[in-house]
């Protein structure tokens, strides 16, 4: 992989904001994570051996990929179910920016907006059956930003191991 491709690659995907398309988005994100992993291991230790990208099985044995995919899954659900009321009446666009020390995923939609800072933390000891999505996304990323629209814009950032991490936070500029 060239240095340019490894550090400045951008993958853009637009699909209907419908749960039937979520798997497409998830697989694209998993592949972007794999590209970051290769860049991550470019200067020393050996990368984990992943199964071929054409496999039907989604390989989430890598923690970085598992956490990013978890976060994106919840955001996609939120947009499809709440932003568009489960009607699939609009699109969602994912832009994956592959940097040397991080993966930045910008997710935009034209659905209803909301204020994620008003979403309460789930009471985990009570074994909740809902309200866990934003908590999962927040916990799995290093940064989670939201700007209400239209378009609504989520920005998810995760740093690779060994890079300088910023405190985990979620913000929603008003």
């Amino acid at each position, binding site marked *: 992989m060239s240095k340019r491709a490894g550090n400045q690659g951008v993958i853009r995907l637009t699909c209907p904001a419908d749960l039937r398309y979520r798997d497409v988005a998830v697989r694209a994100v998993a592949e972007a994570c794999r590209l970051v992993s290769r860049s991550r291991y470019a200067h020393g230790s050996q990368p984990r051996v992943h199964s071929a990208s054409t496999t039907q099985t989604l390989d989430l044995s890598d923690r970085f990929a598992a956490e990013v995919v978890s976060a994106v*899954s919840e955001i996609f659900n939120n947009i499809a179910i709440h932003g568009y009321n489960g009607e699939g009446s609009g699109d969602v666009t994912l832009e994956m920016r592959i940097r040397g020390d991080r993966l930045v995923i910008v997710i935009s939609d034209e659905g209803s907006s909301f204020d994620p800072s008003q979403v309460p933390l789930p009471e985990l000891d009570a074994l909740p059956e809902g309200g866990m999505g934003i908590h999962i996304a927040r916990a*799995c990323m290093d940064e989670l930003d939201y700007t209400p629209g239209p378009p609504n814009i989520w920005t998810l950032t995760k740093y690779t191991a060994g890079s300088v991490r910023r405190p985990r936070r979620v913000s929603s500029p008003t």
Partner: protein
Amino acid sequence: MSLRLSGSLDAMTAPELLPTIDRLVEEKRTRVSVHLEGLDLIDSSGVAAIVALYKRTRSNGGRVTVTGARDQPLAIFKLLRMDRVFAL
């Protein structure tokens, strides 16, 4: 009664599991084993389905065990502090 889940248990597929959960609860099963060795991905909707099975079976005096979670599903159960509840 054993329940083996594979692939993805998410907002798209979890609703397909609900009739099975309803049936297990109606039959008042006292021992339900959920096997997750083949599960690649779970999201909050999938977790909610398993929690619903756990709670409803327990309210009938029964017990649900969840085993075999790995990789992403295990990380999510740990994040939600449910690994101790399910003894994962």
